[in-house]
């Protein structure tokens, strides 16, 4: 600390970055202050939109760590959200507890499921892992109707609004809760990525054998990443339950999982800021396409399909123009601006590489 006193401002900031927790909490407080002002000044409808962005961003951030940092894919991330939402929703329905308890229960159940799903993931890569997680997404839709007595079938569970302290609008209160959850999530994930575990996940992603030679247990790391991403999705699901007021199988269709994946790709895999770009895209692009298509046609089937088409087109355009997502493209631009000043800070931007071609990396080096 005494060294930091002698350093000029920019260097002192760097010193703060050596203390990830202090740095991330400082960023979190600034974000909270800005968001408090935003939520207080915009309409109640916009506060609902902000809550939606927040739970999307949480789920995408976890998926982004899973895919971007640990190199695994989940086509069934909506299922982890469903588990969090049902877990929290059932707790809220049956017990009168402070809001934090059902949310934490939802996170815990989703984390455990994530670890269980992560186990086969240690042996599966690329398309095979995608297949397993796809099955999970489909199961999440069917289980509630199969066990109708517990989950109340297609009707689902009614979740009461969070009761705000006096004088606060419920919409605004929900936005604060969701944003608080999102900020905590970002701090925790940023800490994690800055710690030895973030490094370990990248090592396992890029070179399994070299990671093992250094003493890393790749399977443990892969399961850890799955559990973390699932727990994050569990929080997202709990907040979704509060936001939508109802938890039923239709909320967690395969389309939601695909949307989350699309949001992650658009924002930039492996980037927490990118998760927010992705969430913004998921919320505003459909709104925008709706307003555009409603000018031309009033048939809802057409509007819905045009929406999907435009979304698909957006993904294609982003992948062609910026394979590292919006955030990758932005930080690439920042680096291009700085290139003249220092060459040593250049780092290659890794495009999303899910290793779809090979099923295993081990045999190559074990030949006699």
């Amino acid at each position, binding site marked *: 600390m005494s060294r930091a006193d002698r350093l000029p401002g920019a260097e002192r900031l760097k010193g703060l970055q*050596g*203390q*990830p*927790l202090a740095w*991330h909490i400082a960023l979190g407080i600034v974000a909270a202050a800005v968001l408090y002002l935003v939520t207080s000044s915009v309409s109640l409808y916009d506060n609902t939109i902000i809550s939606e962005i927040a739970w999307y961003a949480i789920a995408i951030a976890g998926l982004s760590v899973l895919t971007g940092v640990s190199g695994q894919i989940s086509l069934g991330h909506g299922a982890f959200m469903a588990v969090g939402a049902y877990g929290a929703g059932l707790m809220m329905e049956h017990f009168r507890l402070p809001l934090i308890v059902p949310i934490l229960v939802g996170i815990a159940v989703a984390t455990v499921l994530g670890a269980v799903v992560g186990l086969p993931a240690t042996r599966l890569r690329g398309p095979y892992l995608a297949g397993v997680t796809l099955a999970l997404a489909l199961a999440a839709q069917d289980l509630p109707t199969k066990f109708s007595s517990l989950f109340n079938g297609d009707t689902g569970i009614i979740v009461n609004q969070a009761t705000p302290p006096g004088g606060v609008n419920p919409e605004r209160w929900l936005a604060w809760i969701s944003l608080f959850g999102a900020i905590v999530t970002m*701090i*925790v994930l*940023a*800490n*994690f990525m*800055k*710690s*030895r*575990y973030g*490094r*370990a996940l*990248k*090592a396992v*992603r*890029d*070179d399994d*054998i*070299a*990671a*093992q*030679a*250094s*003493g*890393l*247990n*790749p399977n443990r790391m892969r399961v*850890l990443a799955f559990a*973390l991403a699932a727990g994050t999705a569990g929080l997202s699901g709990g907040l979704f339950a509060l936001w939508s007021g109802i938890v039923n199988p239709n909320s967690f269709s395969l389309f939601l999982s695909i949307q989350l994946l699309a949001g992650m790709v658009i924002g930039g895999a492996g980037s927490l800021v990118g998760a927010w770009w992705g969430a913004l895209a998921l919320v505003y692009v459909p709104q925008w396409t709706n307003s555009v298509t409603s000018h031309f046609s009033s048939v809802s089937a057409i509007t819905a399909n045009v929406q999907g088409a435009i979304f698909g087109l957006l993904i294609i355009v982003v992948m062609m123009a910026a394979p590292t997502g919006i955030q990758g493209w932005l930080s690439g631009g920042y680096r291009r601006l700085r290139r003249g000043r220092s060459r*040593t*800070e*250049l*780092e*290659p931007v*890794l495009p999303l590489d899910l290793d779809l071609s090979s099923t295993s990396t*081990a045999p190559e*080096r*074990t*030949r*006699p």
Partner: protein
Amino acid sequence: MPPPEAKRAVNRSAASLEVDAVTVSFGGLSVLDEVSFSASSGEVLGVIGPNGAGKTTVFNVVCGFVRPSSGRIVWRGRELRHQRPYQLAHLGIARTLQGVGLIAGLSAVENVMVGAEPIARTGVLSGLLGLPRSAGEERRLRARSLEALERLGVAEFAEQHPRALPYPVQKKIAIARALVAGPELVLMDEPASGLSSGEIAELGRLLTSLRGEMGVLIVEHNMDLVMATCDRIVVLDFGKVIAAGTPAEVQANPAVTEAYLGASVESESAGA
């Protein structure tokens, strides 16, 4: 009370790694046939042999990538059975791989920090919460990794990503990664491959400087490096140990010459 000699035999300054009658066969093909040798801590041991002699298989058996059909690997008096490749580093055995095996998504110093995993203690929860314990350990590991890069003379590349660096620099980073945790034995699979003769000489000086600090086992077919740096050499041919001893002894051994250069005309016709 055991006699002093027996005591010394248990001491780790004697054989720390023992490869004891190891046989490996893939299908009906025997790749290693009753191979035995030992590596003492503090010495540089070379395993050499012509192509296909089973050098890399020896390496893979010790690492746990390949399970021996019979025989034992003993490390510091304990048999290594069912050990997973990643557990070796925690037992004090580090490795460098054929090629370099650096992590493309990490900077040079971060790559070395990955090698410090066996001495890292931060738990998942401290990592998630970014506790000062986690941050403090990160700083210590970084400082230690920079020292390791310094020792290899590549500290100036610490913040760069390996893909952008020349091959010899990448190799040095990989060696720094193997050394950073302070292992008792380093296994190196063809450390000289892809290096120029000047760089090989430099590598030789590094290996010599490690002598006494830790054991080094290199699997190599570059004769200059092996002859100049190894204390002892084990020669393999067709999966069998055909000679073992000091570089001078091995060089003088006719069986070695025969394995490398082929049998002389008379003995070939005599054998036919």
